[in-house]
């Protein structure tokens, strides 16, 4: 029993390490979502208004939508390269449950594409004149929410991995599913401004994260079994 567990952990860790290593070698993939996040967030003041009062009203929503779009863009290289060079099939042939391997890939992917976005968000929030006192809320909700976006997105990616041009299909599948996260994230910011307790919102987002962590890799694994054949 313990031997099975230890090999499983080994497989999990080595998948994680491998993906992080690949991402480190290909620095483009590392920076693309991050740059995209910065650029999209910059477009809003230009498109709407540079006035701090107006910006502070929309800044939380802008950050969340930019993070959502960046996550969507980053999704493309979650399984794509592995699918093309055949290592995804190798992964699926391994004796370990695909659930854990997909989870490892998801975690690696979030560390590379989601975490930088979360880390840089206070800076962008400052540029968008986010109300003071909302920084902690925004940072914590992004920290809990962006993994959910990645996990949900991976279902869509797994379903469309064999497609040549899937940009729009992926967006149409993934974006409506991300709405609950978007709602929880932006409501947390606006409501804590009005004096609501932060802990309630964190509990909701934490629940979403736990649900996504347990269910989404299952769906992604099933989807991969369907599309890689």
């Amino acid at each position: 029993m313990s031997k099975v567990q230890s090999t499983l952990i080994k497989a999990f860790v080595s998948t994680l390490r491998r993906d992080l290593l690949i991402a480190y070698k290909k620095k483009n993939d590392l920076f693309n979502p991050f740059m995209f996040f910065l650029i999209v967030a910059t477009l809003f003041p230009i498109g709407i208004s540079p006035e701090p009062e107006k910006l502070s009203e929309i800044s939380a929503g802008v950050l969340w939508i930019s993070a959502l779009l960046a996550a969507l863009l980053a999704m493309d290289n979650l399984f794509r390269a592995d699918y093309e060079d055949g290592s995804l099939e190798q992964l699926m042939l391994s004796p370990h449950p695909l659930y854990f391997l997909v989870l490892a890939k998801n975690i690696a992917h979030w560390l590379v594409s989601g975490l930088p976005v979360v880390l840089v968000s206070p800076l962008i929030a400052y540029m968008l004149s986010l109300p003071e006192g909302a920084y902690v809320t925004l940072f914590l909700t992004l920290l809990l929410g962006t993994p959910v976006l990645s996990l949900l997105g991976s279902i869509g990616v797994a379903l469309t991995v064999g497609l040549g041009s899937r940009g729009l299909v992926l967006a149409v599948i993934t974006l409506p599913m991300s709405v609950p996260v978007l709602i929880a994230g932006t409501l947390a910011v606006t409501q804590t401004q009005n004096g609501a307790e932060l802990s309630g919102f964190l509990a909701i987002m934490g629940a979403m994260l736990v649900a996504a962590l347990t269910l989404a890799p299952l769906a992604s694994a099933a989807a991969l079994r369907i599309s890689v054949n």
Partner: protein
Amino acid sequence: MDWTWFHKWGSPKWFYELSGKWLPWLVGSMVLCLTVGIVWALLFVPQDYQQGLTNRIFYVHVPVASISLAFFPLMAIAGTVFLVWRMKLADVVVKVAAPLGAWFTALALASGSIWGVDTWGTWWIWDGRLTSLLLQFFLLLGVVSLRTALEDSEGAARACALLSIVGCINVVVIKYSVDWWNTLHQPSTDFSIAADQANGPEIWVPLVFMILAVYLFFAISLILSTRNEILQREKRSQWVMELVKRS
């Protein structure tokens, strides 16, 4: 327990023949319900003291909106049946239900917003129900576009079945989160005229007729599209050849 009835449903031929027998009855009762419902709703229902004669819209909107909520559960059940028992008929249902659901949802949205013009003074409002219905519309289009993108029929069938199940869970989460979002952002507009109006039989009896008519219509349309899909998929089989030759 005898499961033959269940496995019979897996036979496209059996379904095609049986549904051919049902169709005239279904169409007949739909026409009857629709005629009674529409004539009653348009001509005889008393004016609403607040909304005047716009309450006629209610008789189209409510049945259509109520059935458009059933599409994701229907597709999720059919998708599960397909994934578990590999029943080809279930996949046909998943396939034809998605675009039909998009139609129903679009009509529910359009009639809801036209009804809202007087209640809210504007065509569109980010009301909880309208918003979650709009998101459901996008999700249905997602299922349709996934099917078109994955041309390979077996892979596409299983992918769409899975997406229907995921989508069904998601529709529920979206519904609750949108309601939550809506109640926190604005004083909730009371859209539950259904409850106010269901006070006399002259109001709700025509509604029952319309609901029956729309449900029957849903069944008929689903069956018709399913039959078409069956014919195309089974075009190499003997019974379709014979059927075509007889016609």
